[in-house]
């Protein structure tokens, strides 16, 4: 019985093992790795979908399988599947390391799945570390090794620094309460949150998750890593990794009960600084991926608003936002990958004339960008609406106003992307990005998803509500 609930994790573990084995065989053809990975990732998605209604507590209550976790597992496996689908031309990674690439990708996904289900501080910590280490190594896999190792070093240093901070926070938390199970913390924490030690402990603990979400001040890795990582991996970091961070943050923050205004205020301050810093810095970017990195810092700020509400509405909003981010960011990176077919880093100028070279891709990019900017009727708007609505129900009018002004600032660079794709003509005629039939189908599906989910989000919101009900 217990193992059935653990199927998605086991599946991905097995997949990772398979790639471990594959990495040891002689390389015949990269296509083999791709197809294996794609089918495995597809299978993983199906498994996760099948297991979505599973429920139970495993491993002596350290591991909780509920709708919340299973939903996020679906999102994670979807993210993995989408990213793997982009890997048909994995030119950013040296050919001989493709198996390791997939291996680490699956391991990372597995780690995140463990993360979203963990309800014990130890398992949260170690699975967080596992996912981080997979990513450090993945980033270093960039074919242009100078760029890869550079980015990996920064990522690594900031990562371990924040994980050390988080660890110390956990230690303080443990010292103050003597509890390690989230379920216990939910009971006790709201009562003791006004103690300075607990407050500091919580804030330090959150640092590790903020790192994952690329929130100020733990966001410094994002621009370098997005640029330094292979494009597909950057897509993975921007999507799946964020989704997992949202999930675990929701779990942890919800445990604090939301009664302490100091904590809420400081989170709000971080959210505001994060979005402001992200948006302002993104204004002047020329490199598409770096721009997306800053934009994701800003988006993290928006998500945090939903999280800091510590209310069911806020949790719904954050969950929905995670899904939205997955779709929007992935669509952007789809464009990145397709435009930079050689695996390089496209600049904004590389988008010039895209509307002629590939109207579909341009349309998808435009929709994704508008969604990121939060313009209706796209999924991004609905997500923002939910987040802001939740914040407003808590009475955070000023926060919402500031966030909305950030949205306006962000619009500028999003429009620059649209302008690059739709208005400017390329100085040198560049070949049209090759979109296979399946890629076309994928792109179309993404466009439709972005618009339809944005316009009629009701089923998903209902789903999110059910999922978040276990948090409070």
């Amino acid at each position, binding site marked *: 019985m217990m193992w059935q609930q653990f199927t998605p994790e086991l599946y991905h573990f097995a997949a990772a093992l398979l790639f471990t084995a594959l990495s040891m065989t002689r390389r015949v053809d990269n296509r083999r790795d791709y197809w294996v990975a794609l089918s495995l990732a597809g299978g993983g998605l199906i498994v996760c979908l099948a297991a979505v209604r599973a429920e139970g507590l495993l491993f002596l209550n350290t591991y909780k399988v509920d709708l919340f976790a299973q939903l996020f597992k679906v999102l994670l496996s979807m993210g993995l599947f989408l990213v793997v689908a982009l890997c048909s031309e994995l030119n950013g990674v040296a050919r001989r390391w493709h198996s390791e690439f997939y291996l680490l990708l699956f391991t990372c996904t597995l780690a995140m799945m463990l993360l979203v289900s963990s309800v014990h501080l130890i398992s949260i910590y170690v699975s967080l570390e596992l996912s981080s280490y997979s990513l450090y190594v993945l980033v270093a896999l960039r074919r242009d090794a100078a760029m890869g190792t550079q980015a990996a070093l920064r990522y690594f240093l900031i990562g371990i620094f924040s994980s050390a901070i988080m660890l110390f926070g956990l230690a303080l938390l443990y010292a103050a309460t003597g509890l390690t199970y989230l379920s216990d913390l939910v009971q006790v924490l709201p009562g003791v949150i006004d103690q300075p030690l607990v407050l500091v402990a919580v804030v330090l603990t959150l640092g590790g998750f903020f790192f994952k979400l690329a929130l100020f001040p733990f966001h410094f890795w994002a621009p370098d890593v997005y640029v330094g990582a292979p494009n597909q991996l950057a897509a993975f970091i921007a999507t799946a990794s964020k989704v997992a961070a949202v999930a675990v943050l929701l779990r942890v923050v919800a445990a604090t009960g939301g009664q302490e205004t100091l904590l809420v205020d400081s989170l709000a301050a971080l959210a505001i600084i994060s979005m402001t810093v992200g948006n302002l810095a993104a204004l002047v970017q020329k490199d598409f991926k770096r721009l997306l990195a800053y934009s994701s810092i800003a988006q993290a700020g928006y998500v945090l608003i939903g999280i800091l509400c510590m209310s069911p509405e806020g949790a719904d909003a954050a969950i929905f936002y995670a899904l939205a981010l997955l779709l929007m960011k992935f669509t952007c990176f789809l464009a990145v990958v397709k435009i930079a077919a050689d695996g390089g880093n496209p600049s904004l100028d590389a988008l010039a004339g895209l509307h002629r070279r590939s109207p579909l891709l341009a349309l998808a990019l435009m929709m994704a960008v*508008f969604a990121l900017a939060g*313009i*209706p009727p796209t999924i991004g708007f609905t997500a923002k609406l*939910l987040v*802001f609505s939740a914040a*407003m129900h808590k009475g955070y009018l000023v926060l919402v106003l500031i966030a*909305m002004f950030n949205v306006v600032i962000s619009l500028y660079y999003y429009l620059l992307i649209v302008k690059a794709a739709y208005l400017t003509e390329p100085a040198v005629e560049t070949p049209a990005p090759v979109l296979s039939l399946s890629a076309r189908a994928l792109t179309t599906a993404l466009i439709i998803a972005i618009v339809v989910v944005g316009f009629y989000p*009701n089923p998903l919101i209902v789903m999110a509500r059910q999922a978040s009900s276990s948090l409070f």
Partner: protein
Amino acid sequence: MALFYAEFPFLTAILLCCGAGLLTIMLIPSNHPQLIKWVSAVGSGLTLVLSVYVFIAYDQGLGGLQFVERYPWIESLGIQYFNGVDGFSLPMLLLTGIVFFTGVLSMWQLELRVKEYFALYFLLVAGVFGLFMGLDLFFIFVWYDVSLFPMYLLIAVWGSTRKEYGAMKLTLYLLAGSALILPAILYLVAVSGLNTFDLVTLTRPGLFTPFQQKLAFLLLYLGFGILAGVWPFHTWSPVGHVAAPTGVSMVHAGVLMKIGSFGVLRLGIFLCPEGWRYWAPLMATLAVIGIVYGALAGLRQTDLKYVVGYSSVSHMGIVGLGLATVSVDGLNGAVFQMFAHGVMTALFFSSIGYIYERTHTKMIPELGGLSRIMPRAATFFIIAALTSIGVPCLASFWAELMVFIAAIRVFPVHGVLAVSALVISALFMLRVIQKTCYGPRNATMAHLPDVSFSMSLPRVILVMVIVLFGFFPGLMVDMIQTASVPLLGGSAHDVAAVYP
């Protein structure tokens, strides 16, 4: 039969016309521009017919909301797909239908990226229609943005003078407005504690405290005010209009600016009547500054579109003044002015578009003698200008009359200033007419052809509308009355009895 009409979703049908038009255009290969234009014309014509039908079929005796359509949409948030029309939205629907149709016809000569243009155009107009008929705050906001964001591409791709700058400025500026509107909406929904976005439910009196109303109204007023060209948030208007192509200018100045004032009316005034009364002096002051300032600043402009842009600022000031008076007359006048200004500006831009297309200039000093060169085009322009200076028996006059009556009663000083601005606006428009249409024929342009009969169709329609409502203002005012009188309490018939 009546049952059938009541049940047929006419309002959704209008939206569907836009949607179907959009899809059809998307499916037509881009190498059939003529077909695309015809599809656009048919689609927009259908919306016009439908909006005229709705306007006529509305039962004025009954008043209130009619043609109501209501389906649950996002239940957990209390969001519904909720459409309906009343005396305020019907003029706007009619206006949109007219401007949409004539806007399509005015762009018949377009050759660049025809498919994309009309697709975006349809999207834009769908947003406008949706907003005017929407009664759910969520949808109102969605439509608001849907009507704004195609604007960027429409201006930046098909525009002219400083188009990228203008497009960026306009889009950012207008969406900055939405940065105030969305929080205001969410704030009201949150403090109501009703978990609904239903406008009608939220209008229930006593739902919000005076402070909440003041706060929310201010946000809504500033947010929508940007789009309505309220001084000092008006500077996007000249820049944007100069940059935009003809059809877009028409829709933008003609209809989109109305969204701003309509938003203030529909959201601000309906939801926060206390706030409305509280901020009315501010509104009136800004409006009067806009009226005078727009006319004065326009006096020195040399670009025709700048001129019209500033005149729009001035005219929208009249709308604002009407709204600020908190009286039935003021509301009637404001809504009527919204309609009249919409048609008039559409006519303006349509004529200027034609002139620009032929002469390749819209700089006033380079023009002259147009009345001799292209009499029809010049006539349309002159009629628009005369409407703009408030000549009686043209639609705008009545609106201004009502606004002034209301304004003098409530804010005497503001009213006197606003009335005095009539002189400046006359000076301003007549100067433009003199410099462009009159004077000796410009030899370099002498060979240019006049508007052909078919090409003058959109302008003729607009002129006819202006004259029709100029001679029979009752058609419109009676309609608006059905909404404005209940809004301010009291029924139309009681009030009428006071002064036989």
